[in-house]
């Protein structure tokens, strides 16, 4: 049987090393660990596993350190691992099997990179060269593992490589908690720079250099280096697909969509089954407003087959991610049904993909029809554990669907202790159900020292404000103000007090962004409680100019809660000052349409279209309006001329279209 030597270089890896060495136990015949200056228990752990440990002073040279480990290896094969990696599941047996093969000098193996954090983990596969025969003249050169491929080829022209799909290394180094510190990244960059300056023709080095630049967010430089590495490259180069994907990403992040798109087309010419590239082509087109093109790209991404390992395909690009973008495009085209279909497809592909669930929830309008929304959500999701209920509750809360949010939060909390924040959210939901006493009980339970205390206090005031209890509001406002709030928050709190005064003069409050956001939130909750007059009393406290500036948001809010006349007034006010605002034209058009003022609506839709012809809803709004006008005319006509069957038939036709 062929013997396998595991070689590693390490420094201060006590957190990771044990996991790594456990994963190879029984599958490698010796362990060589070269330590470049650990000050923790790394070396002791290595010895526990029977490793041969050698100190080697770090001299800014990866190859020399790596080669030092090779010098000690006695096996027939070398497996190289980093401490933050481990062998997956049955990869040990695979290792045994493939090292028994004749006529192979080395293997590209699959690496699964873990990204993100505890809450949202993603994986990104890759293909790297880590397993090769132990021969005297196979030695590392340069900073990159893969450079040894060239060395082996130089020494042995007939050397053949394979891809070992089933040998999987799991890599945890990109997890948020573990991401290399900045100076480590910079160290890598400077080593690569140094090597490149002495070997400027080396494509592999330049590729890795470009990737490092991308990682430290120097996108334009990354794009330039990657483009240079790709220039004139042999299309059979194993890392070319990855290189081109990085190039697309670098151009995209550098704000060069045109170049990114050109790279997409070029790459698809070479690799017409590369799902990632279709996905990014779709994403870039989507961001550019080229929806037709985005649509095509994403449909292609969805139809791609299983991706070969050397594409290092990102998870979800031919699944939930593409679905999610398609759903968003469908929403832009005002087609909620189609959007829902895509979001659900996305969620099926990855039940942990929260953005899809959020969008589904939004489309179900849980605030307008909680029962229907609940039915749909129960069909879609498994609510097996309280955590799921809490999550759903939070999503619903963010959509201001308080009634339904309350149900889920209560179910989630009944079986486990919830955080103060969730308790607060639950209390807010209670307020929105007019269950003030229960809510007050929770608000009062939050300690003075807790960071959420001011928020709880504010909500307590709101409880009384909604009930018009001037005395209590006055009292608690003074308390709250004594806590020392920000200027804006203080101003809003003051408005709550002033708005209840019997004959208060307009106080002309000026709010900044923060204050306005808070005010809009309070207004929303007021309208949710159907307290239109109370909301208006609050708005009356605002300074005229400040009101003008925010009239669009206020108008939209009133429209959302069905107060058309008020919405009309504020949107009109906003348009008078901002005649070029397409969004205000559109919303006002919707308001007018709801009020039955079709001709005015027509004029406004057209104005929105002239101001911004990029948004599909402007065309759709106009088309729907013409259709509504037509069916109104025909309905009237059928009444006036009951003997004209052609009119009735046309009316049925119009009805069938919708």
């Amino acid at each position, binding site marked *: 049987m062929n013997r396998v030597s595991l070689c590693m270089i390490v420094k201060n890896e006590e957190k990771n090393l044990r996991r790594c060495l456990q994963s190879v136990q029984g599958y490698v015949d010796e362990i060589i660990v070269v330590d470049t200056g650990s000050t923790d228990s790394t070396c002791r752990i290595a010895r526990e596993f029977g490793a041969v440990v050698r100190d080697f002073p770090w001299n800014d040279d990866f190859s020399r350190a790596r080669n030092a480990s090779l010098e000690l290896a006695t096996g027939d094969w070398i497996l190289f691992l980093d401490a933050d990696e481990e062998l997956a599941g049955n990869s040990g047996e695979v290792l045994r099997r493939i090292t028994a093969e004749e006529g192979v000098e080395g293997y590209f193996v699959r690496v699964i990179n873990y990204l993100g954090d505890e809450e949202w983990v993603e994986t990104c596969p890759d293909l790297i060269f880590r397993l090769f025969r132990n021969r005297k003249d196979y030695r590392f050169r340069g900073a990159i593992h893969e450079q040894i491929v060239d060395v082996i080829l130089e020494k042995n022209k007939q050397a053949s490589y394979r891809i070992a799909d089933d040998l999987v290394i799991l890599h945890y180094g990109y997890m948020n908690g573990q991401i290399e510190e900045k100076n480590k990244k910079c160290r890598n960059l400077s080593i690569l720079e140094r090597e490149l300056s002495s070997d400027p023709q080396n494509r592999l080095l330049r590729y890795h250099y470009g990737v490092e630049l991308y990682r430290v967010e120097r996108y334009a430089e990354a794009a330039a280096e990657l483009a240079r590495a790709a220039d004139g490259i042999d299309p059979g180069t194993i890392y070319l697909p990855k290189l081109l994907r990085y190039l697309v990403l670098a151009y995209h992040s550098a704000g060069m969509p045109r170049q990114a798109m050109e790279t997409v087309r070029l790459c698809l010419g070479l690799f017409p089954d590369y799902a990632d590239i279709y996905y990014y082509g779709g994403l870039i087109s989507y961001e550019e407003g080229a*929806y037709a093109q985005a649509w095509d790209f994403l449909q292609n991404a969805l139809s791609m087959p299983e991706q070969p390992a050397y594409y290092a395909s990102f998870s979800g690009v031919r699944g939930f991610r593409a679905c999610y973008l398609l759903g968003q495009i469908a929403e832009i085209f005002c087609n909620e049904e*189609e959007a829902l279909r895509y979001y659900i497809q996305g969620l099926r592909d990855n039940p942990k993909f929260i953005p899809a669930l959020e969008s589904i929830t939004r489309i179900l309008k849980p605030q307008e029809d909680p029962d229907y929304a609940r039915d749909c959500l129960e069909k879609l999701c498994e609510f097996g554990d309280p955590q799921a209920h809490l999550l759903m509750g939070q999503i619903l809360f963010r959509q201001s669907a308080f009634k339904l949010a309350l149900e889920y939060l209560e179910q989630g909390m009944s079986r486990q202790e919830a955080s103060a924040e969730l308790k607060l959210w639950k209390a807010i939901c209670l307020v929105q159900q007019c269950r003030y006493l229960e809510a007050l009980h929770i608000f009062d339970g939050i300690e003075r020292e807790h960071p959420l205390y001011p928020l709880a206090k504010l909500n307590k005031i709101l409880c009384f404000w909604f009930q018009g209890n001037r005395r209590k509001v006055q009292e608690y406002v003074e308390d709250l103000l004594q806590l020392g709030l920000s200027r804006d928050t203080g101003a809003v709190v003051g408005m709550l007090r002033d708005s209840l005064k019997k004959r208060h003069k307009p106080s002309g409050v000026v709010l900044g962004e923060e204050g306005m956001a808070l005010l809009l939130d309070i207004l929303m909750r007021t309208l949710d409680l159907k307290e239109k007059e109370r909301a208006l009393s609050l708005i009356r406290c605002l300074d005229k100019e400040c009101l003008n500036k925010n009239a669009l948001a206020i108008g939209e809010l009133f429209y959302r809660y069905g107060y058309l006349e008020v919405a009309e007034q504020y949107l*009109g006010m906003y348009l*008078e000052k901002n005649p070029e605002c397409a969004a205000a034209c559109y919303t006002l058009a919707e308001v007018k349409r709801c009020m039955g003022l079709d001709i005015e609506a027509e004029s406004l839709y057209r*104005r929105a279209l002239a101001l911004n012809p990029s948004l599909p809803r402007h065309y*759709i709004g106009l088309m729907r309006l*013409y259709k509504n006008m037509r069916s109104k005319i025909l309905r009237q006509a059928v009444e006036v001329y009951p003997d004209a069957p*052609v009119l009735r038939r046309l009316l049925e036709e119009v009805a069938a279209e919708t």
Partner: protein
Amino acid sequence: MMPTIGLIMIVRDEEDNLAACLDSARKTVDEIVIVDTGSTDRTMEIARRYTDRVYSYPWHDDFSAARNYAIERSSSRWLLSLDADEELDLSRGDLRMLVDNAGEYEAFFLPLYNPAGSYPGDFTLFPVLRFFRNSPAYRFQGRIHEQVVIRRPEAVGIAEYPGIWHKPATGKKRNRKRSRNLALLRRAVAGEPDNYFLQYYLGVEWLGLGRPQLALPYLKNARANLTDGNILFRLPAIRSLVLCLKALGMTDEAICVCLEESAKYPSCSDLFFDGGLLFEETGEYEIAVRWFREAVNCGPQHPLFSHTNGTGSFLALYHLGHCHEKLGRCREAREYYEKALSANPDYFLPLCSLFLLDLVVVGADQAWDRFRAAGYLERPRHLEVLADLFFEAGCPDLACACLERLPSPGDSGNLLALKQMAKYQLYAGRVETALENIGRLRDAGCLERDLEVDEVIALILKEDYGAAKGRAFSIWRRSPGAGWALLNLLSLMRDGSRCGRPEATGHGEMIETLLAVIENCLRFRQTRTCGEGCLMARRYHHLVSMAMQLLVDLSPDGCLSLSEYLRGKADAVCRLATAKYGKAWELMT
């Protein structure tokens, strides 16, 4: 002394053209010989005003005989042959210069320009041998499509000027000529089955008469048998064949012809252009782009190539823009349209395309700014075209802004522009100025019906119901339908009353008038939500709803046409969106 240059012509019933022809040429010739073959109009009389060498020659179906008769009556050293429907263009050089530098040359090709007439620069160029030494060896041959034959090609020079401009014939006259030619040609072809010039001409005549089936064999023969020595006729024969195949729906064969011949004449832009058009029409835009690019890269055309002006420049550039637009590459499309426009500012299709492109990319208002910045709001013709487009796109205010940039906007001298202006002003909300301009048109005696209707609308908008009623009555006397619609509209607007049931006649006219009022009043763009602008907007809107109500109350047909009108509006928006979003739009809605 012998005169140097003689003009020889054969004419019949050319009183409309002859004077212009002779005026254009007389400065550069020393002698004019005119042979009349049987005019029954004032042709002879006009001819005699220019020369005393006017002869009669009995027509016996032989062009060459008549022309040679004229040659024999001339004593000049050089001869210029013109037809009465042609004019000589001496602006870039005259015949004397050619004579002085003739050297060994025995004759010259002169460029013959055939304008198609839809815009300046819309012409094809065809070199013709029309200027030659007066020698007994050089005589016209052929009973029809007669040519002077000179055996040694090297003795024939190619002159770039002076050019001959052929006047496009009116439909009736052209058809008369066609049927005369056809009879002659069929006889000639039968008599000379190996004469491929004649076959080419016969093919062209059949094609022109809308009979591609009959044209096809002749054109195929012409292409197969005319040699490179006859490139002058070979190229037009190829192009006619392509047209003919296309007309017969044999696109693949047409493409084959273009492929083979463009490989043979790689500098002939016409062939690449024709090929591009074929691919464009079959929706193969990527391939079409390559062909049009080749056309642009051809460079100046060989002087012996007959040639459609622009196939190597503005025409190909325009089609490049169109193909890119179809491929969803708006930026490239825009660049090509702009190039096309600067190559020939009188060819304004690219301007229309740019307009539509901008309409869905940046919107009407920004489109206007862009056009101004790009310098497209300078030429009067561009301004008129764009004004129309803006009006049709529902922006009468911008239409006005275009016309106001004319050198003398609202000048009574330019009645067409004044009419446009009055209409655009009215629906842009500038009622008073519109009324003034309508008044000036009335004074000039050219107030058309639609503007009369507009005038009543203007008076209603002004709430001058008395004057409106007067005008509406005057319309009613001549067109009861339109009058009834307007009278009802104005009483509805004044006090909500009606003027009784409509008469039985003029029902269609009522519907038409009311729909026009709706369409035009909907164009008004409200830019203010309160104050004066809002008040105006309310009146336009009110007019629209009253007109709609009238249509519904009028009859089932009224309802039907209103319903169809609204369907049309929705469809127009849908087309705009489809142009913008392509397939995504269809999938989503």
